[in-house]
């Protein structure tokens, strides 16, 4: 048995038992499910209650690294840096596979931040079509 699970207060337990066959509203389950799937801001009262324990348990960190995405990006960037340094910045057959796999991971990470919707050229903005034509794209698209 997990020692961290404390019994409900007697008063609350009595109130719950007094509900008999009354079912919990669906919203309650939705909110519980939501809180399991993503971060949900805790009520102020809860923060005030747990803040002393959190402060005692944690060490100060740079706020920017409190974001898991940035930390993950830092890890990927580090791997890329190490790979390039180790290879002497040379894409030789011997060492390019390792550095390229790191680079591919970085590319896929950044690309995943974009949701791309495929469109036909005429659905691009006039500026996009004009720039594409300047790069040599079939110029009919700018008509």
């Amino acid at each position, binding site marked *: 048995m997990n020692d961290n699970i404390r019994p409900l207060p007697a008063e609350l337990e009595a109130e719950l038992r007094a509900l008999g066959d009354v079912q919990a509203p669906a919203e309650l389950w939705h909110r519980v499910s939501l809180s399991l799937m993503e971060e949900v801001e805790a009520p102020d009262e809860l923060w005030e209650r747990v803040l002393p324990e959190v402060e005692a348990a944690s060490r100060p960190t740079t706020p920017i690294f409190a974001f898991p995405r940035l*930390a993950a990006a830092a890890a990927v960037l580090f791997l890329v840096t190490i790979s390039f340094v180790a290879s002497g910045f040379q894409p030789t057959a011997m060492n390019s596979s390792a550095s390229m796999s790191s680079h591919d991971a970085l590319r896929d990470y950044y690309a995943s931040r974009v*949701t791309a919707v495929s469109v036909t050229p005429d659905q*691009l903005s006039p*500026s996009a079509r004009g*720039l594409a034509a300047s790069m*040599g794209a079939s110029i009919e698209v700018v008509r």
Partner: protein
Amino acid sequence: MSFARIGSVLILLSAVVGCLPQGSRPGARLSYTSGQSGNIGVGAAALPLADFVYPEDATLRQDRTYEVVDASGNLDRYREILWADGTGQFSLEIAGVAEDGLPSFSAPDAFWQSSYLTRQRYLVHYRDFRIHNENQVRRNYTWSELPGTTTMAGRNCSRYLAESVYSLGSVEFVMDQQSKLILGWIRRDGAGNLVCQMSTDALNETPNLSGVVWSQAIAPEQEYNGPPDDNLLGFSPNPVIYYPAGFSHGVQRIILSQVTYGSQIPNLHLEVLRDGLVNIMVAQQLEVIGGGGAFPEIIIAREAEIGGIRVMEGDVQSIRTYVIGSLPSQELLAVLGAMN
């Protein structure tokens, strides 16, 4: 260990390793290798690439054909005339159009003439291929002279093939053996599919240049010098964070389109990323009025493939951003996604 601690430690290590002098890095070498037998790229740091002369730098009238795969997969062809005076002045005119794989050329209408008039400088600078940086080419490409002699515009020509060591495609040059003039090129993607090509039909190296109207920038341009120039743009450009393998940043410029076209076309921040041969255009501007509607803050991009040339268009922190090039979509998406 938490993400925060891992991130902090890795960044610190990265900084320390990055500060090591070149000679102290394990495996550091001075020469570049291509890893491809039979190519002159092996140990290419000491070897010169072909000593090309580019048409726009020469004195000539070059009648040529530009061919590009369109969005339907058909080949569109354009007959062009390039005039150049050897001092850097040039003019690129359109002389014929054959779209959708049609065999015969038709005379260009006013639309085509206007299109070339406004874009000729960009076509020569950003579409046409040339070696921008020899060291980058040595690092990023295997370089080989293809066997045999080919004929183009009545000239005996050699062919040189630059293949990306990162599987990002190739560029083949056709060079006049006598004058070293580039008479043609072929751009293929990483799968070997044709993207576009140019070939010379006729060449006159003693042309009568009287009456030629030399190209001029339609909209004034100037170098972007950082935040002091942001008032010209109305925003602070987002920096490019991710570079496809072998690519590096380019000079940042401002195109003052409002001077020519008024407020309907906001000024443009332009940066061209290069790997020595191939260009990726990254442009940013305030959202164009009637330009397709606003995007939410998360990056939702429009993606279009026009032949082998791909266009990404999305809003990054309320700045309309365009990434355009002949690289795979995933590379261009990463450039865009990293700017957020």
